[in-house]
């Protein structure tokens, strides 16, 4: 059986309910930008949000709220539209949801591996990185300390579960030693949400540990 390539239904519902942590939401949003067919689920989740809204016991707004809003309608200068939010980085090859964040510098993180931070979306120890791995290279062997969500942006990598291509979403199993290998001719670019530090096992891990903070 091939591994699933999209977020679970419960994760998509949490994304649309606005309750997913910011780093996880970044990876889910990237997947949705690259894989429009998954949006059938998120649009369903919004419809459910609408149904939940409809069924609320109304909580009255302040007296005079309507009048004060009506008075503001004329000078309601359209605010900057969400859909044209100013990009905060110059990497036009990135999917739209990632353009809204500043990026840290690329750093070396092992043979053929570079990482850069996506600045902003954090939740405790959980944060977002871009990972670029050269063709034929593997990410350093690592086990997972907490959940790791990954979405491929360019190129492809393979794990024991199969090949992951642009738009594919992977939820790492914390019990599995994870060593994706890049199988595309070009480098593989991924966005990942990491919770805690990646633990690099073995001798290489010990050597790299002082230098590599993934």
């Amino acid at each position, binding site marked *: 059986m091939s591994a699933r390539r999209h977020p679970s239904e419960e994760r998509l519902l949490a994304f649309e309910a606005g309750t997913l942590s910011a780093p996880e939401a970044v990876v889910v949003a990237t997947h949705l930008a690259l894989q429009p067919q998954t949006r*059938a689920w998120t649009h369903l989740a919004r419809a459910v949000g609408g149904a939940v809204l409809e069924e609320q016991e109304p909580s009255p707004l302040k007296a005079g709220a309507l009048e004060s809003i009506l008075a503001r309608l004329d000078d309601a200068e359209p605010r900057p539209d*969400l859909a044209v939010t100013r990009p905060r980085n110059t990497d036009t090859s990135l999917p739209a949801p990632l353009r809204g964040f500043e990026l840290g510098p690329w750093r070396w993180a092992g043979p053929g591996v570079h990482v850069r931070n996506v600045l902003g979306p954090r939740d405790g120890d959980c944060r977002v990185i871009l990972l670029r791995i050269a063709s034929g290279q593997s990410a350093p062997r690592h086990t997972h300390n907490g959940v790791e969500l990954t979405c491929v942006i360019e190129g492809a990598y393979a794990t024991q579960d199969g090949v992951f291509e642009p738009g594919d979403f992977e939820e790492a199993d914390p019990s599995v030693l994870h060593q994706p290998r890049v199988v595309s001719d070009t480098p593989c670019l991924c966005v990942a949400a990491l919770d805690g530090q990646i633990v690099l096992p073995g001798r290489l891990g010990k050597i790299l540990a002082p230098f590599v903070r993934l």
Partner: protein
Amino acid sequence: MVSQPPRDFSALIALVAQAKDRAAFAEIFGYYGPRIKALLIKSGSAPAMAEELAQEAMLTVWRKAASYDPARASVSAWIYTIARNLRSDALRRGSSALYAFDSTFGAEAPAQPDAIVSGAQDDACVRAAMRSLNPDQAQAIEMAFYQEQTHSQISQALGVPLGTVKARIRFGMMKLRAFIERETGGRA
């Protein structure tokens, strides 16, 4: 108060978009404003913040009425999304970028032959689908919208394992989708 027949909010939004009709807007405001405030309070916003965001959401409805496409989303889903985006933006920086790319419910992407699009635009169909769920599934899905509820908080509140909560939401969502596809005949 005598309960009123459901109004056609889609037509009211069209009046706002085309004619800047204030009476139509007042009607939308009277119905959705207090419901947005109630949902935001249940989602953990302080009452003053919920009031402010509800008013801001209604102002956004006025400004963006022309972008509402009844073929893409129900009025309630559209207004829910506006309120959700405002709340996310108030809570965390940069979240506008996360939701902006699909703020038009896929209008920027080529239309897909997908029954969810045609079914999810129909409030009555979605509510009927919700009623078709078993109570445990409906409750887990509803709770996912409240109180910044993470799945583990829902699990604690209900006293059931985390895996059970996830399974209820997952199978509930699948059942909703199947129900809507069946009711709308799978047409685009």
